[in-house]
């Protein structure tokens, strides 16, 4: 099913690696984009906020909803050659940011980790606003597409 969906998405929007992240109004497709496509475009940016992705790894980082951020990484274990993955959910609560790992492991992040998380969400917002939604992140004004 996932492969079929991928093919359909590729047919509709082309090769994801070739998709332009900025979408000036006059270059948008006639149809509306879906929320999933927006998330994919956002995650393209989010995945690169933390530096270079190691060879053989696939990383996703995106804002799922107002209070939930997802980190997902996939790679092949060099020793066992088996695919590995790890998903971390960050929940923004009134009293802090809860980091939830698979296996019911969770803890509120603190110190440098909290600072880094907040910085990552800020950079994500700023870059996604500019490059996906084509607006200034702090004024909300539409950016004029560069010619």
């Amino acid at each position, binding site marked *: 099913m996932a492969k079929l969906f991928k093919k359909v998405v590729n047919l509709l929007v082309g090769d994801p690696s070739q998709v332009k992240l900025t979408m000036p109004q006059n270059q948008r497709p006639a149809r509306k984009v879906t929320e999933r496509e927006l998330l994919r475009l956002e995650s393209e940016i989010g995945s690169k906020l933390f530096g270079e992705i190691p060879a053989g790894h696939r990383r996703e980082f995106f804002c799922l909803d107002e209070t939930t951020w997802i980190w*997902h990484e996939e790679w092949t274990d060099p020793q066992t050659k088996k695919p590995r993955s790890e998903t971390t959910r960050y929940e923004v609560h009134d009293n802090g940011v809860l980091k939830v790992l698979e296996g019911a492991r969770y803890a509120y992040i603190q110190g440098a980790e909290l600072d880094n998380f907040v910085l990552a969400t800020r950079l994500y917002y700023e870059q996604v606003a500019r490059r*996906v939604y084509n607006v200034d992140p702090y004024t909300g004004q539409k950016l004029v597409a560069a010619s």
Partner: protein
Amino acid sequence: MERQPKSTNESPERIDTTELQDGADVYFNLGNPNLKSIEAARQAVADATGNLKLKEVIPQPQEYSRGYGRSLMDLRAKELGGAVDRTPQNIRSWNDFEVTR
């Protein structure tokens, strides 16, 4: 009138002081790269608002992330052509989220 926090993301000349009343919240966004210091922001707001007695709000770190999340939801909703339906049945569980590539 409902009190709307005024973010220091806005430059002082953009702050619409006509909406502000004594006791209004002024939201100090420490995450704003243009914000030099609390003192500078305080002075800029004072210059723009005169003698109003404002209540300073200095948010906790998690409030920034919530704010960015909320702004992203608004951008997404606009892009999709309407408000995002946030009723429980339409909120996806993270386990349901499938990244396809």
